[in-house]
């Protein structure tokens, strides 16, 4: 999808004003968050495994060229094909050409964030190929024509009634269906597609360099359907998704799944080692792996941002983030919402476009706390903020007045006498405009503050004065 990361403020405002979404989302995030905490506590050596997970990602990313070469040599030896794509357009072109060469009419898609970057389903529909999302959440947002709201729960913002209505429009079912009935309806609609499909596109949760394997994690079983039913299987991955050895997978699966949903393991974990073997009963005849850069090289090149590439896409930082929980997934304006999105989206889509995102954080550190591989997101947000404010003036997200204001603030606070007098002046000048010691509304540029909260009037007798008085025995 095309980034609309420049409309963060507008999106956030709309979501904040929507009481239904505020109510329903809070319960969902709290559920995920609590499950994650329980799963962590119940796992022996949880923190040691997270440390190990981080160490493995650090090692792999630091030697990424070596492991990419090893991975692709092995896939080649396993009978698969590999395409390296510098950007979305190149990856899309490869897949569309392949589809056309194999006379593909219907494509089934399993959940893949990279293919969301590419808007692959759209691109396919545009050239007359039927492309159907098979993860139920993705299927729902495809029907709605929307972007994923959450990394692991893409349609979580849709109510039961909204889904029932969409299904009713599509198939003529009763618009009052329960989640159980809706699931059965979707099962029927999608099974018919599975039988018809010529080609599948899936994501990749882990790629194993030493064996040329890819690993898919799902609960629904659509990943298995996509790797069992069609003639051609195309897996799309960001270049960072590698682990060196199969031996790393046990621990990686543990920290990923338990951080994502709190399950001990998801219903299905599928490892694919190339196309179907000669004597196998079924499975795809062809396997293609598309390895995508699409802006990740910029993260790799900046030592301060490199660790964003350790991300396992578990979504834990979203559930923990007080800002994401309020502004919701669509405000971030691109495929990756939440704290990790606030780092990767501006870099991948261009800092100018996404300049508001690094500021969409209170830097409370909850994201770093819950991250299975301990990515220091707050630190990266600060780094990006610095790039924004020190960058070219037209790319900054603060106006001339705000900059001027901060200059004045700096001047006033450089000397204690100025600070002291300034406080008293503010009290005197502000008094006529304040009510019960609070400003309810301030003129621009300070109006941004008072739009959502009151601003206290500076005290007439500041703490310093009272402290001095009390020490000298004056009391109060």
């Amino acid at each position, binding site marked *: 999808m095309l980034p609309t990361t420049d409309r963060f403020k507008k999106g956030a405002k709309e979501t904040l004003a929507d009481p239904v979404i505020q109510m329903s989302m809070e319960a969902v995030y709290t559920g995920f968050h609590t499950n994650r905490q329980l799963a962590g506590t119940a796992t022996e050596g949880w923190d040691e495994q997270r440390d190990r997970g981080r160490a493995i990602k650090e090692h792999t990313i*630091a030697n990424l060229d070596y492991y990419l070469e090893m991975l*692709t040599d092995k896939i080649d030896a396993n009978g698969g094909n590999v*395409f390296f794509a510098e950007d979305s357009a190149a990856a899309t072109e490869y897949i569309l050409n392949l589809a056309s060469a194999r006379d593909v009419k219907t494509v089934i898609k399993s959940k893949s964030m990279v293919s969301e970057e590419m808007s692959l389903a759209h691109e396919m529909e545009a050239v007359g190929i039927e492309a159907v999302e098979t993860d139920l959440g993705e299927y729902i947002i495809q029907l709605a024509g929307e972007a994923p709201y959450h990394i692991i729960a893409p349609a979580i913002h849709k109510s039961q009634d909204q889904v029932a209505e969409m299904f009713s429009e599509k198939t003529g079912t009763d618009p009052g269906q329960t989640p159980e009935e809706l699931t059965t309806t979707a099962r029927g609609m999608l099974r018919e597609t599975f039988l018809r499909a010529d080609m599948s596109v899936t994501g990749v949760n882990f790629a194993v360099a030493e064996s040329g394997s890819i690993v898919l994690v799902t609960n629904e079983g659509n990943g*298995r359907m996509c790797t069992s039913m069609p003639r051609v299987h195309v897996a799309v991955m960001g270049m960072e998704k590698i682990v060196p050895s199969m031996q790393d997978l046990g621990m990686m699966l543990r920290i990923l799944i338990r951080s994502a949903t709190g399950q001990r393991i998801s219903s299905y974990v599928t490892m694919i080692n190339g196309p179907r073997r000669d004597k196998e009963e*079924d499975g795809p005849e062809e396997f293609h792996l598309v390895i995508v850069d699409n802006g990740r090289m910029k993260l790799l090149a900046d030592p301060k941002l490199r660790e964003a590439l350790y991300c396992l896409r578990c979504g834990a930082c979203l559930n923990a983030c007080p800002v994401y929980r309020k502004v919701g997934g669509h405000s971030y304006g691109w495929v990756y919402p939440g704290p990790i999105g606030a780092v990767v989206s501006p870099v991948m889509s261009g800092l100018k476009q996404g300049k508001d995102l690094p500021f969409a954080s209170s830097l409370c550190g909850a994201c770093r706390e819950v991250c299975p591989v301990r990515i220091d997101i707050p630190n990266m947000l600060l780094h990006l903020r610095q790039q924004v404010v020190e960058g070219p003036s037209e790319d900054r997200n603060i106006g001339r007045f705000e900059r001027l204001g901060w200059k004045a603030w700096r001047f006033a606070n450089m000397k204690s006498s100025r600070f002291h007098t300034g406080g008293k002046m503010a009290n005197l000048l502000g008094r006529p405009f304040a009510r019960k010691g609070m400003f309810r509304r301030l003129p621009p540029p300070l109006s941004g503050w008072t739009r959502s909260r009151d601003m206290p009037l500076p005290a007439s007798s500041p703490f310093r004065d009272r402290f001095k008085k009390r020490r000298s025995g004056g009391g109060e």
Partner: protein
Amino acid sequence: MAITGRDTFLERVRGALGRFPGAPELDDATHIGLAVEDVRRLADDVRREMSESGDALLDAITESAAMAGWKVRRVASPEDAADVVAEICSETGATNVLRSDQDVFASIPVDAALSSKGITPRVATVGGAGDDIPTLKQAAFDADVGITGVDYAIAETGTVVLHPRKGLSRLVSLAPGRHIAILNWGDVLPSLDELFTLERADFNDGAIEGSMNLISGPSRTGDIAAKIVDGIHGPFEVHLVIVG
């Protein structure tokens, strides 16, 4: 097969990292340095543990599989196992039963038990006397029940491990509404880590299959109003019959 665009891509990666081509220094962070004979030795240790702790591991998976969402039945003999399988099929009103062509059906008389209930299972194979692939797919989608053996099970997570291959279609454990898996004594691994040790040893020996499925309960979704519902694409009900 083909690799396209690799040289320029890797050049750019090296540029971004400021790195020269060559193998990295291996440290404790990675197992990749383990020599083939070390991996083989580790795998032997795992196999020894599977049999030495066979009883305890079977107890452990009885519990963890139930937690993962399997309906677990533990029986003493192969005949009992076959009877349980047949009971599940007849109690659920299954008429259309599909099974894999694994060794387990030689030791556990499932066909005989089913036939006493008036059910003749279809065997999911292609080529020779079997079907072609499209027919197999349709048969798997039409089946009420799919029956398979188990390559390994994992005590930590309540997982059944299957490697699709000749005789074991990818779809028997996936497409029918119910899946029954039969687990024998001695096939239970303590945790995911031991599974991947064995896989790694198999890979080194050139004996790895084209794919592997870890199955831990029914097909599940929580995508409509965060309500957990079983049976979105795969089985809505899964049975684990444990022999021993």
